[in-house]
């Protein structure tokens, strides 16, 4: 019996999954095991599925996802560190019918950009904010972030985060949920297929809210791993995330249709 070759398998009729055309062919710069790639993909899938690619403008932050525009095959602007919500405000105010989103990490959104985040959310800008929280500064080499857990080790808290001297981790998502200008606030993860599906649904809801002109920011936090920064294998990092990050940053919707749950 003849051996089955790759060419026998790679046929249109066998196609069960394909990459969205809104992701470029460039190889992702993220570490293997990191959640960014999945978060990018489902965001782009949502934009494609909703048919919004011709009217969407994304804003990339400073951090690991600073090069998001290399991977997302749509019009993009790269913002200064923390300023993405202000940049998005500028775009949305002059092009109110376009779809505008930011994609930000925890250092960007919850430390240097706290002011821009809170005020964009409080003004009720009609934008989507996707917030990747991995509790660490990944790109600069694993320093303590505003969301680093108490006792958690990082290169600038090598003996663990001492909240007495280093302050407490910030729950930015609970904070913005309290503001009248947010319409949808949720916290999700992308570490299991089930969670990926839930997160994609949440992102879809966020973009639908903006498309339908629902008043205010739709804010999706994705608690994610940073296996390199946490100095763990990808698998261990996901277990650690479930055991340590989720109790502090519980998953689920916080505000839906402008109502706190």
């Amino acid at each position, binding site marked *: 019996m003849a051996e089955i070759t790759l060419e026998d398998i790679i046929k249109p009729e066998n196609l069960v999954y394909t990459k969205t055309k809104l992701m470029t062919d460039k190889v992702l710069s993220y570490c293997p095991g990191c959640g960014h790639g999945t978060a990018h993909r489902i965001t782009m899938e949502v934009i494609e599925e909703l048919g919004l690619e*011709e009217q969407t403008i994304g804003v990339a932050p400073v951090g690991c996802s600073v090069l998001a525009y290399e991977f997302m095959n749509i019009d993009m602007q790269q*913002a200064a560190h923390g300023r993405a919500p*202000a940049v998005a*405000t*500028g775009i949305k105010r*002059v092009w109110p019918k376009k779809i505008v989103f930011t994609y930000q990490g925890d250092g960007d959104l919850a430390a240097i950009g706290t002011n821009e985040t809170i005020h964009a959310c409080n003004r009720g800008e009609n934008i989507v904010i996707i917030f990747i929280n991995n509790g660490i500064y990944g790109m600069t080499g694993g320093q303590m972030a505003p969301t680093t857990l108490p006792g958690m080790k990082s290169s600038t808290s090598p003996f663990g985060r001492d909240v007495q001297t280093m302050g407490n981790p910030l729950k930015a998502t609970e904070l913005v949920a309290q503001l009248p200008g947010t319409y949808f606030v949720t916290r999700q993860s992308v570490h299991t297929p089930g969670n990926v599906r839930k997160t994609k649904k949440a992102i879809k809801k966020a973009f639908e809210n903006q498309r339908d002109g629902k008043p205010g920011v739709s804010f999706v936090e994705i608690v994610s791993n940073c296996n390199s920064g946490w100095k763990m294998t990808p698998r261990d990092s996901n277990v650690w995330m479930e055991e340590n990050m989720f109790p502090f940053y519980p998953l689920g919707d916080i505000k839906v249709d402008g109502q706190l749950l």
Partner: protein
Amino acid sequence: MSELKLMKGNEALAEAAIRAGADAYFGYPITPQSEVIEYLMAEKPFDRTGMVVLQAESEIAAINMVYGAAGAGKKVMTSSSSPGISLKQEGISYIAGAELPCLYANVVRGGPGLGTIQPSQADYFQSTKGGGHGDYRQIVLAPASVQEMADFVRDGFDLAFKYRIPVLILSDGVIGQMMEKVDLFDPIPRLTDDEINEKYPWATTGKKSGTERRIITSLDLDSHKMEEHNHKLQAKYKEITEKEVRYELIDCDDAEYIFVAYGSSARIAQKAVKLARAKGIKAGLFRLITLFPFPSVKMFEMCGKGIKGFLAVEMSAGQMVEDVRLAVKGCSKVEHYGRYGGIVHTPEEVLEALEQKIIGG
């Protein structure tokens, strides 16, 4: 329709923004330029032309809103005063790096630090030598009247889009606050969305099918590409230096002594020229209109034509005077005179300085 009005400099700037067809203004209050956003909010350009006016949470947010809107092809501006302009420098560096067109105004007050709310010209270095990080330049226009506060908004936007560069209107507390008559230019319609899409193939307005996506960024991790990008920027600055120098010469034809000044100091020096002439001193005024590009070529040319000395008059401890010295390359005497920290010099003080530092010195 053009219209004659009595206005404050700050109000003229705001009215000119509406008339220039600006799409948006993002600002934050600070003395002595708060009238800009106050005028715009009261005038409701959102009803008149559809122009957006938004009070941001900080100067930092305002300049980043400018970045976003400019990156999406719109005609946008902001304004502030010295401490607020310092906060904007990060954003301006990004705007320069990403080659976005925008206009902003600095109604300068005395510094350093929180300084004072009185007029000053001590932000010359910041305006012309960088301000933010990296090798970049911006076009700097220095109005010396309320009329120019209005006209330079129109001209500034034109230059900003011609070169895709930030343009700064460097005013000061005198020009911003004083009232003069101003002949307001005819309104220019805002561009339609289709016109923006057609005119600005770099603007992020949503990727159309079959076209390449557009990216606004100042980043390239490949240093060789970043060097190339810098070469491109430098070539642009060179072209601007060759083509966009603006200045005005007043009573310079037979002059032996030249005041070099811009903004409100130029108005004061113009009076000092009259006082000098009344005393038989042949003085003239070289009024700078563009501070970058600096009119070095013309200044050097004048040097060899019987000029016995230049007095740089500026409300600072001596900043512009460095560019005058560089321009004349030692061929003539150059001195500085100015009050600073919020004090405005008088024409008499300026004339006295000429007599002591140049003529008698």
